[in-house]
């Protein structure tokens, strides 16, 4: 059995808009190991969501995966038809989105919704599904699960709805859980509760997780490995410890110094100038070039390849060695 559960290569996704094409994802490659929690971080519009939605066959009518492969246990998900994809989604791969209100059915009791995913995939009988659903609600930290089974989504708080979404995602014992900004809309104390549930589930079930977040704090505290995206491309990927100590991409470094932490008071802040790219033209050169302090002519003409710079550490920057050297000094 391969150690790699999901192997994404050269994924490229475009959208049609009235005013032209959007180059949302441009040649993204990454792997997810068995049992690993992978964090994908980046600012809004960097292509995080579109990358996973492409893999899951969930991009809208106006979107198209124009190139790439996404092998899940050796099977290319991008080649599956709708029917085959439905057998994978929700069963082999569980999904949690940012806004549970839009993914839960407002007029169905939450217990019913947790049971349904097991019944659709014919995992068990109705009676057994009820018992399992109760156990799942308990696992995700919902008190009094028997009573909660009968609630409608509007009767639950945002944090509780997100727990229900996680219960649904876990119901079929997926090999991979994909969570797209699951705590972004939550208060800090509730965010901590939900992160704790995710970590527990991850440890107890030995599944793999992709955690998409724009919050470096969340990614570095929860994940084993971190990928940084920008302009629809992967800028850097490294084990978390390597990432926090020796990130080699100017954008990763800028991102880290952009975070205010408690104790930052009085610190001189140096914001990254400019705005993220709008991606209405095909990528040419490094997407970060307009905002990078180290930019050279080469950066504007030649897309930097993702290359290995240390063990398990890849980076897409023409000047990564210099970045590392500079930091070492």
């Amino acid at each position, binding site marked *: 059995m391969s150690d790699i559960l999901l192997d994404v290569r050269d994924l490229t996704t475009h959208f049609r808009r009235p005013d032209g094409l959007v180059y949302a994802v441009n040649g993204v490659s990454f792997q997810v190991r068995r049992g690993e929690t992978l964090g994908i971080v980046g600012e809004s519009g960097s292509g995080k969501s579109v990358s996973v939605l492409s893999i899951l066959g969930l991009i809208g009518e106006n979107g198209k995966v124009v190139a790439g492969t996404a092998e899940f246990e050796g099977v290319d998900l991008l080649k599956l038809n709708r029917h085959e994809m439905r057998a994978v989604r929700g069963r082999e791969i569980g999904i949690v989105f940012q806004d549970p209100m839009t993914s839960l059915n407002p007029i169905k009791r939450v217990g019913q919704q947790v049971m349904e995913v097991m019944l659709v995939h014919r995992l068990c009988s109705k009676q057994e599904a009820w018992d399992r659903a109760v156990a799942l609600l308990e696992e995700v930290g919902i008190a009094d699960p028997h009573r909660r089974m009968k609630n409608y989504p509007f009767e639950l708080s945002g944090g*509780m709805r997100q727990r229900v979404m996680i219960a649904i995602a876990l119901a079929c014992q997926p090999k991979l859980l994909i969570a797209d900004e699951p705590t972004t809309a939550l208060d*800090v104390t509730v965010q901590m*509760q939900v992160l704790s549930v995710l970590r527990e589930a991850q440890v107890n079930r030995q599944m793999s997780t992709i955690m998409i977040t724009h919050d470096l704090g969340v990614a570095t505290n929860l994940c084993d490995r971190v990928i940084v995206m920008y302009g629809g491309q992967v800028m850097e990927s490294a084990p978390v410890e390597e990432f926090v100590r020796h990130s080699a991409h100017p954008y990763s470094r800028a991102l880290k110094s952009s975070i205010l932490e408690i104790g930052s008071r009085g610190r001189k802040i140096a*914001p990254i100038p400019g705005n*993220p790219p709008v991606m209405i033209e095909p990528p040419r050169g490094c997407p970060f070039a307009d905002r990078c302090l180290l930019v050279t002519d080469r950066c504007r003409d030649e897309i930097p390849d993702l290359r290995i710079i240390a063990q398990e550490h890849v980076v897409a920057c023409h000047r990564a060695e210099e970045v590392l050297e500079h930091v070492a000094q």
Partner: protein
Amino acid sequence: MSHSELLVVENLSKTFKVPGGTLKAVQNASFTLGPAKTLGLVGESGSGKSTLGRAVLRLIEADSGSIVFDGVDIRSLSTKELRLKRKDMQMIFQNPLSSLNPRMTVERNIKDPLIIHNIGDAKERSHRVRELMERVGLSENMARAYPTELSGGQQQRVVIARALALNPKLIVCDEPVSALDVSIQLQIISLLQDLQREHNLSYIFISHNLAVVEYMSDAVAVMYLSEIVERAPVDELFAHPQHPYTRVLMQSVLKVPESLAQRSTFSTLPGEIPSPINPPSGCPFHPRCPLATDICRTTKPEEKMVGDQHQVSCHQAGVTAQVI
């Protein structure tokens, strides 16, 4: 003391009538704010931050309490007098688009308050708009753009330019950077700080992000379930947080760890903020407080002073500093 303050708020309360009863959104809020200073307001969703900020500007009418701004009792002003005073008090919201007119150009949006208050002639106004745009970092070619054609960060710059147009003394900033990407957040924070220095602006800076509030503020008020539960100068609050809720909030800010050993355990409070329609008896925090005792369940704690300008509403304050 109070004559050196720009703003003195005392016992401000606001309730809303809602289907299940009466919702106490803000209860007995008191604070002072000096010229060119920033008061940070933190607390979880629904704790009453925005309601307090709006009530101070009389964008909504408080039920009771007093607001003295620049020596004037704001709550006793007539609508007409209030309109004049509004020049000095502006507000910036989280979602910039909600406060801009989508059918007007950037230039016209910024010019609007000058027209409303009948300031300057056409030429002077145009000149002022250019000046403001340059100051907040908007390039001249954006003047004719419409708000929806700009990025979120640029839209927020337009809102800031418009708020500055009348040379206010106070700006209530309600989550001004929460909807923006981190790199853009820092740009806006830096801009707000520079503008404060240049124009002696006072800010009420509302945010649920404690690190951002610490960075921006001279003093901080922590709200929980419609009450200010702790208030202190920023250094004092972060060095000696007294309320159990304040301490939990501080622990809930995730830091990028330097090693795996330093990673967060994600430990936090149980439960969630209760409904303000039916708040708990005694101390509003008692159902979630790890230090709660019998008295907490029955008796509301009085606000007490525990240090220089440091106020806290907790029975155990001062006694328990090391426990959580």
